[in-house]
């Protein structure tokens, strides 16, 4: 054991005796500082699992109940820790089952390395049992992928995989390893990858662009910042906050940028986008300079592009050159890592004062509060609202929890109303909108930050897409809190049917099982709330629990998320009802 430890000291090139390709895989992970893997075994990856058994004291494996769950758990882990999530799956269906998670990680820039087993190299292309061309299938949704057919390739390729997944704009990498390569023996030595000649992880920033951006910002009368996940991925929260405060610019977040700045900061004017806040959406079309930081102008953020911030000069701080001018034409593009470019621009910007301009945001917030938020937090109707549940969770956790949301109405309520005081506290499937994301992602998040409260907020639809992961909670005792907001509808689709399809509720009504019994079947303490009077105690009880806890809240059936920018409308045409 001692020699083994010596061999696996980080960062050093090590030489050792002959080991199998499968053992090499495990040693590579240890070299990369990985101690947690999510996965599901099967024929083509059995040699690697056999090594996991031997190395179980150093590398912990979490058996999920479906490979998709493994990917989302790895994503949840990566999102709250900033580390790379690792997934193991077997060939064929094991590999195809991880495609959704990979696509999700690709569009939301999550660092993830997936290792799949493959049939032996002599069987490739023969339609062997559980053979599928996962390299071809995963190509459009991976940052990089590779098929290993010789054990000697394993150290170099895995080193590359971890470097690519984590560096620059992060993303998922898939490495497919044939079974014979897992058995083959090699002399193992490992060297971390620090550079690939054809890949520039972070573009060098141009000081002239920094100065140009600063001069535009300094002369702006109504500047407005929209920040995205780039701030979190670049670990630039501090630099961003300093920049925002010095320039005194009202700032709004994209859904994925949430929690980078505390929700209650006086300059944080909320969330932009389809169900974002009224003020930042409306005033997008009134600002004179729009400063986009680590965001990609997703269509859910911009609405109709031809009527998006046309009056404004656009400054784009961005790490990925392919995002510049992709959707919105930029006046000043500042390429580079935001942590660096924001520190640089800070040297050239003047201390700002935009009190009157910030007041315009506050005035519009009042309108939103009176027409929408007040009714959510203190409803006069009998039925419970999603907003009051989130608000109650805020009060109990004091904004200190990680909120993992799924996809749909409840997601928008969670993103709109959850209070955050710490960074990396909001985990949601933004770009891909993967229903079923939250439960496994919350498990991964809890394992990433075991000392924090992790609350999964899920709709009754999405919950049933990965409900089997309750088994993972049962087995690992991950103390995840699950809140299912049950309106017995696929709520977001139903809302669209109500607004745009004359209330033709095609296949959105859900006949649901007894969720409490199901949770109890998995050994999870469970409770159901139907009346407003019971809500506070129920949430208090859930938050107080030291182990996993399930809470179903029966919600008003036909409640809608507002404000809303209908598809094809401009951000400033956002509807309040």
């Amino acid at each position, binding site marked *: 054991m001692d020699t083994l430890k010596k061999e696996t000291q980080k960062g050093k090139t090590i030489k050792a005796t002959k080991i199998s390709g499968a053992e090499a895989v495990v040693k590579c992970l240890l070299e990369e500082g990985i101690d947690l893997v999510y996965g599901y075994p099967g024929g083509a990856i059995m040699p690697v699992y056999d090594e996991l058994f031997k190395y179980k004291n150093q590398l912990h494996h979490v058996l999920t109940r479906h490979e998709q769950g493994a990917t989302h758990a790895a994503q949840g882990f990566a999102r709250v820790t900033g580390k790379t999530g690792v997934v193991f799956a077997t060939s064929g269906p094991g590999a195809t089952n991880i495609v959704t998670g990979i696509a999700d990680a690709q569009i939301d820039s999550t660092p993830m390395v997936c290792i799949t087993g493959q049939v032996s190299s002599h069987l490739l292309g023969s339609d062997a049992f559980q053979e599928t061309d996962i390299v071809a299938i995963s190509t459009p949704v991976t940052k990089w992928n590779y098929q290993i057919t010789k054990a000697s390739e394993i150290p170099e390729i895995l080193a590359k995989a971890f470097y*690519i997944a984590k560096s620059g704009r992060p993303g998922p990498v898939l490495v497919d390893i044939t079974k014979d390569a897992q058995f083959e023996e090699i002399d193992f030595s490992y060297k971390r990858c620090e550079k690939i000649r054809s*890949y520039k992880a972070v573009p060098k920033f141009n000081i002239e662009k920094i100065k140009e951006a600063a001069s535009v910002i300094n002369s702006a009368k109504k500047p407005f910042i929209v920040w995205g996940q780039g701030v979190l991925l670049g670990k630039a929260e501090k630099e961003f906050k300093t920049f925002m405060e010095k320039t005194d610019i009202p700032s709004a977040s994209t859904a994925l940028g949430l929690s980078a700045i505390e929700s209650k900061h006086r300059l944080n004017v909320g969330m932009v986008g389809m169900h974002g806040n009224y003020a930042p959406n409306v005033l997008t079309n009134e600002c004179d300079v729009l400063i986009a930081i680590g965001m990609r102008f997703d269509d859910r953020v911009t609405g109709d592009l031809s009527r998006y911030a046309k009056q404004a000069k656009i400054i784009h701080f961005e790490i990925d050159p392919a995002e510049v001018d992709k959707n919105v034409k930029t006046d000043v593009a500042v390429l580079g890592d935001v942590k660096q470019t924001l520190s640089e621009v800070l040297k050239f910007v003047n201390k700002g004062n935009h009190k009157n301009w910030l007041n315009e945001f506050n005035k519009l917030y009042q309108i939103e509060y009176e027409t929408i938020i007040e009714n959510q937090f203190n409803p006069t109707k009998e039925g419970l609202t999603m907003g009051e549940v989130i608000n109650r969770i805020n009060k109990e956790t004091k904004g200190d929890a990680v909120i993992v949301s799924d996809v749909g109405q409840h997601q928008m309520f969670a993103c709109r109303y959850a209070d955050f005081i710490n960074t990396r506290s909001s985990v949601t499937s933004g770009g891909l909108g993967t229903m079923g994301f939250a439960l496994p992602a919350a498990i991964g998040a809890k394992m990433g930050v075991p000392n924090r409260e992790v609350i999964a907020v899920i709709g009754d639809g999405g919950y049933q897409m990965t409900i089997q992961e309750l088994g993972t909670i049962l087995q690992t005792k991950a103390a995840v809190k699950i809140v299912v907001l049950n309106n017995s509808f696929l709520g977001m689709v139903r809302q669209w049917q109500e607004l745009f399809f004359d209330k033709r509720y095609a296949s959105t009504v859900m006949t649901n099982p007894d969720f409490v019994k199901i949770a109890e079947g998995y050994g999870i303490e469970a409770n159901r709330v139907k009346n407003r009077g019971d809500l506070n105690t129920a949430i208090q009880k859930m938050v107080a629990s030291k182990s996993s806890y399930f809470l179903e809240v029966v919600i008003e059936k036909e409640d809608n998320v507002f404000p809303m920018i209908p598809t094809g409308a401009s951000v400033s045409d956002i509807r309040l009802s």
Partner: protein
Amino acid sequence: MEEKRNFTVSVYTENNIGLLNRLSAIFLKRHINIESMTVSKSEIEHVHRFTFVVIVPETLIRKVVLQLEKQIEVIGTFYHTEEEIIYQETALFKLSTEFMYDERIQNKLKLRRAHVVTITKNYFVIEASGLKGDIDKMYDRLKPYGLLQFVRSGRIAISRPKMAISDLLIEN
């Protein structure tokens, strides 16, 4: 609606399996038809070169080029208009030997700087290089003789402006 134009896209890459799939997927993702494609080695050792021809608006090709460039094993990507490149396509025509001494065919060969590469008892093969239009014309002229086989290569192109791949490799 922005005008669609012919663009020649040159992608310099590492020589790895699967890269063709990754690059063509980027065109597929944006629903772009690839008019022609050639893969060959380049002027730099171990660096390969893909030459794609597509007909799209310039704003679109700019975005596609950035997406191509973003792929890990892509070293550099360039796009050029027809005016910015010198390009050729090569075609082979297989005809029955009975037309071998037909004067009209002989004249066409001279005109197009084409030449006969093989003659057998039953057939002969003409090779012609030139612009796509030239080859198309040649095809139309020879078709009445009953083409036994016809094949045309993808475009190969050399750009007039510099494509500083060696510099990119040094810089990294």
